[in-house]
């Protein structure tokens, strides 16, 4: 699949700002710059991991791509279509081909609908099947996510978190999409269930030739599943590279700190590891620092970092970094 270099999704300078209203007459006084200039592309058949801590804008990026949030600026190309200029009905049709899996398996299924209705809903929405056909397709989809078709007439609350996430996955692949955004799909699950779901993702990718944008905060899982990884910090991408490259040769100080903070399930590892512990907290996206976003916590920042915003540039082939020192 690496040979196929066709770009499926291209995001160009995407910005999503949420206005803040304050004061006596509820004037807009500013904006939460949740996503503030993000560019990347996803090739057909690959998995791109998007990692970052809470509030870094990774979920917002995912939702803006599929237009659950209206982007403030920037462009998103899916195949040859520019998405931000589409109207609702046009976008609705695009969703046959691009799908999303949500974080919370308890909240993402309508409690009043049966599995058949939930999984079959996309088919119904596009008028592609009816009656018996839906039943057959739903049974097939349930088997694909390793759930028994006998569950078809049951309701979501009869299932555990892992099973519900499978239901959500079945729904997302119902229309045979080529692109699926996985928004922290395993972070609400127990450790022993996470591996099941990750394996399922891999199986489905192989069988259905899917392309994933895999959003998560768990770096080790992201590395495991992704071909390329983008690290987000405070609304921007700090670094993006091939999975091994970014882990073996991190260039951005934030990536380095993040990597050293990963808890590794090996006590021996800690005897030798030198940790980089970052000081302080992530600043508020409503009032981000000038220049480089990371400079307030960066161990190597200098005056220049406060003045100018570092460009997101390609250092070596396919390895992008937004840092002056790299």
């Amino acid at each position: 699949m690496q040979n196929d270099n066709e770009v499926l999704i291209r995001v160009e300078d995407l910005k999503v700002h949420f206005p803040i209203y304050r004061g006596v007459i509820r004037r807009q006084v500013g904006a939460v710059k949740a996503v503030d200039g993000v560019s990347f592309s996803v090739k057909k058949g690959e998995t791109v991991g998007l990692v970052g801590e809470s509030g870094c804008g990774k979920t917002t990026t995912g939702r803006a791509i599929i237009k659950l949030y209206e982007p403030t600026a920037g462009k998103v190309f899916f195949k040859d279509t520019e998405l931000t200029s589409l109207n609702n009905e046009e976008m609705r049709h695009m969703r046959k081909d691009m799908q999303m899996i949500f974080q919370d398996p308890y909240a993402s299924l309508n409690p009043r609908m049966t599995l058949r209705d939930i999984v079959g809903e996309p088919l119904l929405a596009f008028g592609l099947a009816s009656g018996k056909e839906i039943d057959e397709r739903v049974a097939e989809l349930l088997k694909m996510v390793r759930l028994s078709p006998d569950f078809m007439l049951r309701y979501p609350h009869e299932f555990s978190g892992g099973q519900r996430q499978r239901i959500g996955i079945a729904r997302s692949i119902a229309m045979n999409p080529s692109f699926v955004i996985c928004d922290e799909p395993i972070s609400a699950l127990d450790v022993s269930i996470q591996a099941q779901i990750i394996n399922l993702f891999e199986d489905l990718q192989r069988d259905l030739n899917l392309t994933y944008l895999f959003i998560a905060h768990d770096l080790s899982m992201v590395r495991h599943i992704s071909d390329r990884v983008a690290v987000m910090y405070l609304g921007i991408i700090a670094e993006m590279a091939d999975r091994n490259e970014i882990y073996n040769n991190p260039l951005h100080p934030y990536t380095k700190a993040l990597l050293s903070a990963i808890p590794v399930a090996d006590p021996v590892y800690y005897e030798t590891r030198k940790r980089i512990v970052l000081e302080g907290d992530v600043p508020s996206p409503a009032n981000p620092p000038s220049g480089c976003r990371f400079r307030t916590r960066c161990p190597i920042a200098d005056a220049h970092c406060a003045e100018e915003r570092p460009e997101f540039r390609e250092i070596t082939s396919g390895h992008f970094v937004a840092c002056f020192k790299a």
Partner: protein
Amino acid sequence: MANELLNVQGLETRFKTPEGLIHAVNGVSFHLKEGETLGVVGESGCGKSVSMLSVLKLVPMPPGEIVAGTAEFKGKDLLKMTNEEIRQVRGGQIAMVFQDPMTSLNPVMTIGKQLEEPLMLHLGLTKAQVRSRSIELLEQVGIPRAAERLKDYPHQYSGGMRQRVMIAMALSCNPQILIADEPTTALDVTIQAQIVELVIKLREQLGMAIVWITHDLGVVASIAHRVAVMYGGFIIEEANVKDLYKSPSHPYTIGLLGSLPQIQAQTRQRLYSIDGMPPVLYKKPQACPFAPRCKWVLERCWHENPRLEPVGEGHRVACWADTKSGSER
């Protein structure tokens, strides 16, 4: 053993819910030595938090109920103590830090006021002493401008800062045991690293024993001396941290470790996964609770619940099967 601080035997706790009785803890036994850090690992609902809350009788009763067991702290059974006696222990000799720093501090009380409560209660300090000690504590956990920040309310602190305050509060009376109930779960990775680092530093300074409850095998590896793995309300394996990660012997522990991706691996390997799901304990398990998910399962596993048996130096496992050979032990 002379330096044994806490010795819990046969602890059982259950909850009444509208759906029926939940058997959260079904006979948990462990001990804790002075200055030692015990990691308690398990998935949600395995009973790890409830066991520790039970030890301090902090389980809400009702609906909770401690049915059986003893918890000897320096020779005295905590579970048999009167409310007044155990109150003296809480916060003074055994302190706790909770999972969610956002909800664990009283929103309408200043940080200073919340910090000074245990100081006045357990140490009986004067106003001036309390204040200087509070500032000292906040500085110790790395909160800048500590004197000013005493006047602030919790919502003016970030999540990581609040967890530092919680730790400061817990350590204020120099407890012998610190029970940390998933203290980093609600935090981001970089903040989690800060907190873990802080606790390791304070542990060296103060020498208290720690019980660190978590579902994250990585965090435990970085901080614990000894690890107990829980499943279905039981401890199913217990060992020195290096032994546990090097030669896990219970199928569940093996599965858990195998389901984590290897950070060093340069090529993608398929993850090992445990099938099925953790049990919901409406009935007290009479057989091995892991049997339905176990790949080594034997006939015996379906009828009899294995007890923790030693398999090596300080390494105990509750399993009928020998995972090395696949046959019965």
